[in-house]
């Protein structure tokens, strides 16, 4: 196993102190991860020594910027085992990736009466673009329920599946419940009936090896900022044939072949889907982040995060009046819980006074909150730089909150 104690020291922000001098205990990586020095340095190097627009100029800096940007695309393609760099589109993040699918694929291939299948545990970003599409096309949304353990109900999925279903878009791992989806089984069954499968991998690509060819999905979306990379950069992987069959999403510069006064033709993949000057520094920073986590090893990171969340769940479960949501095993990095008598916002506020950052609220999953019959939850989420001592601090903080609220 790598030296995770040493790895923590790669993240300068984790040595920062809060206004009142508290050490920062960062348990909110499922929302956004911290960045190692290597990524910060790479972005700085780009702006200091390579900055220019990409794919346009013929000068020295334009060549440096273009090479670095395209190298990041190659790094990204290799990282998820995409067959070709043409299938890697840089976006602003998972939300934009899913919107791209819903508009550029959905508007062309969804018609009245078609069905789009999601699950109740999706993030809003994997619900709202499909709702909008369904409204535009008079299509219907179908939701896969979850089991009492929080897993997607595969039996219900099979019952809902029919040849009316044209798109199945589900999360690879819930940002609330931490459970992982049995993707392979779903892909095989969906493909057998002609449906396209889109996977929201925002919570898994940062944490474990993900191989798009092995999964067999048609689309896969993730965000750079949850995997040690910069904000404002994300990825959409799409199978070449499907991307070729789609119309552009945004239009303007960069994405064209020939522009005449009354019509235009489109650039080849992947540029057809990258209108305007892209987030060059973001993509290069993402490439550096992938190099950084790949060097540690995705299997190692996965194992370490599982250790941390298992440790957290064991400690949390000793507290009376505390409910943990989601499966007991293979939980991923997100541990959501609630405490009787203390609203998540109040707990989060009290923990914040001790330097502990957790997330409180509906976690962008209002439909799932309705299923869980709560309005909000607390979530502690873990990544490669966290340690067991931080969970001890969390537990201590919860006892402080209980004392303030007079809850036993």
């Amino acid at each position: 196993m790598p030296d995770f104690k040493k790895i923590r020291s790669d993240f300068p922000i984790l040595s920062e102190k809060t206004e009142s001098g508290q050490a920062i205990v960062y348990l909110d990586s499922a929302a956004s991860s911290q960045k190692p020095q290597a990524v910060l340095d790479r972005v700085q190097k780009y702006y200091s020594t390579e900055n220019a627009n990409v794919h346009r100029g013929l000068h020295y800096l334009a060549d440096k910027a273009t090479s670095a940007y395209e190298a990041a695309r190659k790094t990204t393609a290799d990282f998820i085992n995409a067959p070709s760099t043409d299938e890697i589109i840089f976006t602003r993040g998972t939300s934009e990736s899913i919107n791209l699918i819903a508009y550029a694929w959905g508007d062309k291939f969804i018609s009245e009466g078609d069905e789009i299948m999601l699950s109740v545990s999706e993030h809003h970003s994997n619900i709202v673009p499909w709702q909008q599409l369904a409204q535009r096309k008079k299509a219907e949304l179908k939701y896969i329920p979850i089991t009492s353990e929080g897993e997607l109900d595969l039996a219900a999925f099979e019952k809902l599946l029919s040849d009316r279903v044209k798109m199945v878009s589900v999360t690879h791992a819930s940002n609330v419940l931490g459970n992982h989806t049995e993707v392979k089984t779903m892909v095989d069954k969906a493909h057998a009936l002609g449906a396209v499968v889109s996977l929201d991998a925002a919570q898994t690509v940062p944490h474990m090896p993900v191989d798009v060819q092995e999964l067999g999905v048609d689309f896969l979306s993730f965000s750079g900022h949850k995997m040690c990379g910069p904000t404002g950069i994300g990825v959409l992987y799409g199978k070449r044939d499907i991307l070729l069959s789609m119309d552009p999403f945004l239009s303007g510069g960069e994405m064209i072949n020939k522009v005449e006064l009354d019509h235009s033709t489109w650039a080849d993949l992947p540029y057809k889907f990258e209108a305007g000057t892209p987030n060059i520094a973001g993509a290069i920073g993402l490439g550096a982040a992938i190099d950084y986590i790949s060097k540690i090893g995705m299997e190692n990171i996965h194992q370490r995060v599982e250790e941390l969340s298992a440790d957290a769940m064991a400690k949390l479960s000793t507290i009376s009046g505390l409910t943990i949501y989601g499966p007991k095993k293979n939980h991923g990095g997100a541990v959501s819980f609630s405490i009787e008598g203390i609203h998540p916002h109040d707990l989060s506020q009290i923990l914040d006074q001790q330097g502990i950052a957790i997330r409180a609220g509906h976690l962008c999953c209002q439909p799932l909150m309705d299923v869980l019959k709560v309005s909000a939850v607390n979530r502690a989420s873990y990544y490669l730089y966290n340690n067991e001592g931080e969970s001890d601090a969390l537990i201590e903080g919860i006892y402080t909150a209980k004392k303030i609220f007079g809850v036993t």
Partner: protein
Amino acid sequence: MSSADLYQEIILEHYRSPRNRKPVTDAELSHEELNPACGDKIRLHIERPLFSNFYYDALGCAVSIASASVMSEALKVLQPGELEQVVKQLDAILNDEELSWPEGEFWDQVRCLEAVRKFPMRLKCAMLPWNALLKATR
């Protein structure tokens, strides 16, 4: 600044025993307001003349519940025509520590919300019931 500054006994007391809070059926519902950032919810029942039989039901944190409770009592010393102005003023005061706290019976009653000034991220929680009421009466 410690959390104790926010979670003073008076806030916690209102949170534990909110005044004028009772279930609001769909038939009795005048207005429902959500805080989209956190999922908190308040349902109001309003009768005319305004505030003659006001009650609410709320799901939320200590700050928003306490604020709703304090509001439901403070309304009793308010003329309906004053609502718009006091909500605007309360929002401004909670936003700006430099502003002095106004005088009068109404402001004395809502003064227990003063601590929210030190916690700007909780302003939305404190203002949710007030903004809901304002929307409902416009």
